[in-house]
């Protein structure tokens, strides 16, 4: 198992404490392509933050790639994010004044990899995404689909155990969305574990498994065979 969540609870403190995650149990295996779906306010984003080691949880356990993620220092969390997780965001989150290669290479900068080595590896990833000819363009000079592919290249450069994508097609048109989803499916076919948080059923349909979250709890699974060739897991109320 690459991800194991065991009775994870999270409450946001305040005048009226908000109990957002009410005991999440979740297992994701190596090589899975999983969609996490849920309405806004369901706890979907909080779950994403915890999975991405961007936020802490209160009780329970979260094990990522064999490491217990619990009460980490900021430095240790940064290190684990850098090594284990590749992030893909809805708004791409490329740095505007850095060109494509520099953006892709940035995670390696924080590993202390030398500039030449970094840029060589970044070029490899861009080639893999079919963007070698755009390597020296600034994000502002790229289309949405290209930007997202640069972001995917960046998420891959540290050779992470897991790609965590937050609404990766949310800012793209339908056609580009399909292209990006195809990239994810191809990566998954090569063995990469990918978790996509989305509210788009079209995106979810292209994943091998859909996890629905509602009111801070995972909705129980029910495996069915979809119209496609692969086995798709959906909740019974889908």
């Amino acid at each position, binding site marked *: 198992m690459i991800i194991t969540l065991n009775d994870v609870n999270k409450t946001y403190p305040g005048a009226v404490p908000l109990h957002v995650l009410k005991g999440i149990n979740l297992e994701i295996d190596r090589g899975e392509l999983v969609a996490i779906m849920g309405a806004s306010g369901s706890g979907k984003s909080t779950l994403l933050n915890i999975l991405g080691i*961007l936020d802490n949880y209160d009780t329970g356990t979260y094990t990522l790639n064999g490491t217990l993620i619990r009460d980490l220092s900021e430095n240790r969390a940064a290190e684990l994010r850098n090594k284990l997780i590749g992030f893909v965001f809805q708004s791409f989150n490329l740095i505007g*004044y850095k060109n494509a290669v520099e953006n892709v290479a940035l995670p390696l900068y924080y590993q202390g990899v030398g500039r030449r080595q970094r840029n060589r590896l970044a070029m490899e990833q861009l080639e893999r995404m079919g963007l070698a000819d755009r390597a020296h363009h600034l994000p502002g000079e790229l289309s949405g689909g290209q930007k997202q592919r640069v972001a995917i290249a960046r998420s891959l450069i540290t050779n992470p155990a897991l790609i965590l994508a937050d609404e990766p097609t949310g800012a793209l048109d339908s056609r580009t969305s399909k292209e990006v989803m195809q990239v994810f499916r191809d990566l998954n076919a090569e063995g990469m574990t990918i978790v996509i948080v989305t509210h788009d059923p079209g995106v979810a349909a292209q994943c091998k498994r859909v996890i629905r979250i509602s009111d801070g709890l995972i909705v129980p699974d029910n495996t069915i065979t979809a119209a496609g060739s692969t086995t798709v897991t959906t909740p019974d109320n889908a």
Partner: protein
Amino acid sequence: MLDLFREIGQTLSNNKLRTVLTGIAVAWGILMLIILVSISRGVYNSFESNTAGSSAQATINIYSGTTTKAFDGFKEGRFVRLHTRDIPHIVDSNPEMVSAVHTTISVDSAKVENIHDYTTNGLYGVFPGSLDLERCRIVAGRSINTLDNSERRRSIMLEKRNAELLFASADSAIGQTVKSLGLAWTVIGVFEHDWSRNNYVPFNTLMRLAKGGDGYVWQLTVVAPGMTDEHSGRKLEEKLRSDLAALHHFAPDDNGAVWIYNRFTNYLSNKKGLGYLDIAIWVIGVLTMLSGIVGVSNIMFVSVRERTHEIGIRRAIGAKPRSIMLQVVSESVAITTLFGYIGVVLGMLLTQIAAGLIADTPASQGIKDPTVDIGIAIKVTIVLIIAGAIAGLAPAIKATKVKPVEALRDE
């Protein structure tokens, strides 16, 4: 390290206008600091050159005064007249401290002439060695020596402009004869002086001619190489006062009877004062710079706030808080140092130009060579780096508080 510089360069050039505007404040502050420091240097240089030569400093001048206390049967208000007879007394009673006592006599109206021309710059009777004290520079021939004085020779030293008037050049004047006070004098030397055009003759010669031998003088110059610090200087002053009190029958604690001006202790306290001036200048300069620094700090806060999202992204993809902090502090140091140096270079240029402009004008009496040296440049560098780091510290700490979750927030 090189990577860090690249990162800084990228972020700074990404915001050129803001960087430049902030930088101007720093450059201006440093420019002011350099100008102030160089003025202070100039005052110091001019002080040093005006009091040049250690022999000039180890002297005490004594002037005639009026008694303020009744003493030894005399009423107060009596004029104390210094006399050439005082000289051997002072030398003999202070053998360790005093090497010589000089005085002068002048005949201001005396003509100095040859068959062609004459000057009316007067005669000035001096002791051997006095010329050093008067800061004369010999350009030809020799100075007045002990024999000239003791044998009351009619030797004369001409001021350079006078020598040129009478004999065309300084060198051709040596050995020539001039006439003054109805007598013939041999020119033994020619000297240069910053302002005076008096011609010098041996004291004893002129004293004999003017007053027939011993007589009253206005002032005594005590050469006292024995003075080593403020304490020994003050002590000698008191000793001289009491010596003269015994000779002239006034109360030893009567400060009005003779006026004593100690060039040595005065030099020491002036020097101390200039030290304080230097400190004050640095304080003012650094405070001026502070406004520039506050500007940098302010702009770094804006920059951190503006880049919250970017910092969030960097944190999400693995930047540790300390690398974010290092980046912000380095940016701040980079802005301060870069523009600080522009200020330094500008300041040095301006002060060099100013030094060139005032070099041969009366202004150079008060401010001489107002430039800063490499030592100042090093001090300024250290000040800049520290100032930049301080300016960046608070914004940097704020930057480390940015949570990686910020990356997920849409702008």
